[in-house]
């Protein structure tokens, strides 16, 4: 355990849409931009497809953090579905807080097909943030959920 | 590992908080030198200095007067198409050359800056008469006379202080500086 905390490598599940953010990842690849290897991506057609179940399933399966990524607001291939993802994102953050999971383990990243560099640097940043949070520890039964529930400022 | 870092990197490393693109991105367009009001007096124009740094010609750079002639007007910086912070680069070169004690002979800049820094450390504020000896003897006779004439007139017009200015909390001020630079290095 001590060894784990010393060189803790978080595992992160990332969801991308098919049109912008997955292509941003492709772009980062084509341009050989380097980023941390901790994120494993799942391609959806649209960030609007993101069922909150997926996020909870990822945490339940042992992921230390989840990244949600889609087209910039206004640029959605399906007109406006990324706004739905945005709304679900805020909801999920609250639920996670209530479950005693740091909301910093869920990140939303808008990346257009041209923003490979942003995609790469944001992933590296996120990995560092999660590394600082340490491995995800589900609160044990009876354990006090210390995070205040209603103090979160909604964006 | 014995990685030797390039002169370009060495200089870049001296730019602690300066923003801007690294020197290696310079496209040698000459906007900086075309803009510079002092370029005509420099051994090498700012563009040439960047080229020399990128080529690793350290001696040539440090022996030049270029960075001591920079007036800090930032005109090159706002125009650089590659967003290189050229003025800060000139600062870095001054710093580098003072630390290494390596600079062109007969320049007033290095001695003047040393005197200035010491003065602030002692009093917290600037006091012009203290500065004079640091440069007055490096001026040629005519320039020295000019300086004395000017000082006299300033004094007559009530524009030159007679007593050195000092801040009140000078002791804690000195200790504050001590936390950044060991005092021995300056005094």
């Amino acid at each position, binding site marked *: 355990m001590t060894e784990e905390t010393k060189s803790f490598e978080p595992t992160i599940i990332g969801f991308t849409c098919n049109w912008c953010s997955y292509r941003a990842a492709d772009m980062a690849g084509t341009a050989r931009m380097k980023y941390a290897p901790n994120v494993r991506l799942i391609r959806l057609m649209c960030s609007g497809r993101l069922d909150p179940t997926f996020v909870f399933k990822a945490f339940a399966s042992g992921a230390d953090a989840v990244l949600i990524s889609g087209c910039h607001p206004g640029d959605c291939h399906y007109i406006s579905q990324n706004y739905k993802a945005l709304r679900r994102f805020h909801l999920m953050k609250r639920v996670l807080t209530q479950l005693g999971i740091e909301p910093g383990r869920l990140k939303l990243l808008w990346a257009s097909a041209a923003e490979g560099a942003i995609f790469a640097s944001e992933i590296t940043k996120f990995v560092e943030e999660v590394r600082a949070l340490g491995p995800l520890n589900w609160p044990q039964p009876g354990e006090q959920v210390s995070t205040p529930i209603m103090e979160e400022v909604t964006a | 590992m014995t990685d030797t870092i390039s002169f370009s990197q060495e200089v870049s490393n001296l730019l602690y908080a300066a923003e801007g693109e690294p020197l290696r991105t310079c496209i040698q367009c000459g906007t900086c030198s075309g803009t510079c009001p002092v370029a005509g007096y420099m051994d090498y124009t700012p563009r040439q200095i960047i080229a020399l740094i990128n080529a690793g010609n350290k001696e040539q750079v440090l022996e030049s007067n270029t960075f001591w002639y920079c007036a800090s007007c930032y005109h090159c910086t706002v125009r650089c198409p590659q967003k290189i912070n050229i003025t800060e680069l000139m600062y*870095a070169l001054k710093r580098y050359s003072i630390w290494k004690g390596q600079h062109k002979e007969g320049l007033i800049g290095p001695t003047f800056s040393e005197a200035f820094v010491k003065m602030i450390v002692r009093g917290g504020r*600037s006091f012009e008469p203290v500065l004079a000896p640091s440069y007055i003897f490096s001026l040629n006779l005519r320039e020295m006379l000019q300086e004395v004439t000017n000082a006299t007139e300033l004094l007559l017009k009530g524009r030159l202080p007679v007593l050195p200015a000092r801040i009140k909390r000078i002791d804690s001020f000195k200790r504050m500086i001590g936390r950044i630079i060991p005092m021995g290095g300056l005094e």
Partner: protein
Amino acid sequence: MKEYAYFPGCSLEKMAVSYHLSALETTKKLGIKLKELEDWNCCGATTYFYIDELLAYTLCARNLAIAEKTGLDVVAPCSACYKNMYFTAAHLKKDADLAEHVNFALEEDNLQYNGNVNIKHLIEVFAQDVSAEEIKSKVTRPLEGIRVAPYYGCQIVRPQKEKEDVEQPQFFEGILSAIGATPVNYPLKMRCCGGSLIISSRTAALAMVRNLLQSAVDSQATVIATACPMCQVNLECYQQQVNQEFGTNFSFPVLYFTQLIGLAFGIPPKKLGIGKEFVSIAPSLLRAGQSKD
């Protein structure tokens, strides 16, 4: 009543005392209070920034920390002080590591800087915080027919801060128009006066001063208006040396913009520090100021 924390800077204590006087007088007329920062220290000038950045940031941060306690915006009349403090604040805001270093040193003086200070140049107070209408309303002796060369110099506008125009700003002209003067087209208004090169590289600096003076003459200006003590001293006090060096014959008045505003406001010249300059200002200027008595 607007209130600012006022950082005069070393030059204004003696060398540019007329700037200091006129700044206080004119702002008072506009209902602005300049409250001098308690026990301020030198901003480090250009020199500190090239000797040791960290030390330079600490010097500026000490002033910022003192100002922060007042809860007021800081006003600096000197362009170099302004630039140093503005960018120190900007860097400290962005760079937490730097802020930690600096605050460690500030502890010795029982100070702490939390990044909540706005820094303005004195001319920005006149150009942005006060409307042209407010200035006009205080003018009792408009400087009609006085052609003024607005000399911006360097560090008010450079380096660039946001997206503002750094090549052809117009705010100085706006102030001059508000006091009834005629701002002339002064092509070199953004060029450097030589700054500290006047000490370290005399010939270069004198040539720069020569160009600025010549351009003002060519623009048929009566007076050059400056907003920086360094610029004023270089442009005014070294005219004799320029004349020796280049065989010219300059005798061109250089005033602080606050002195011109003061004249237009009808403040007695003496209270504005007029009389301390090497080159006496043209009687026409004084007359313009006093004519409507």
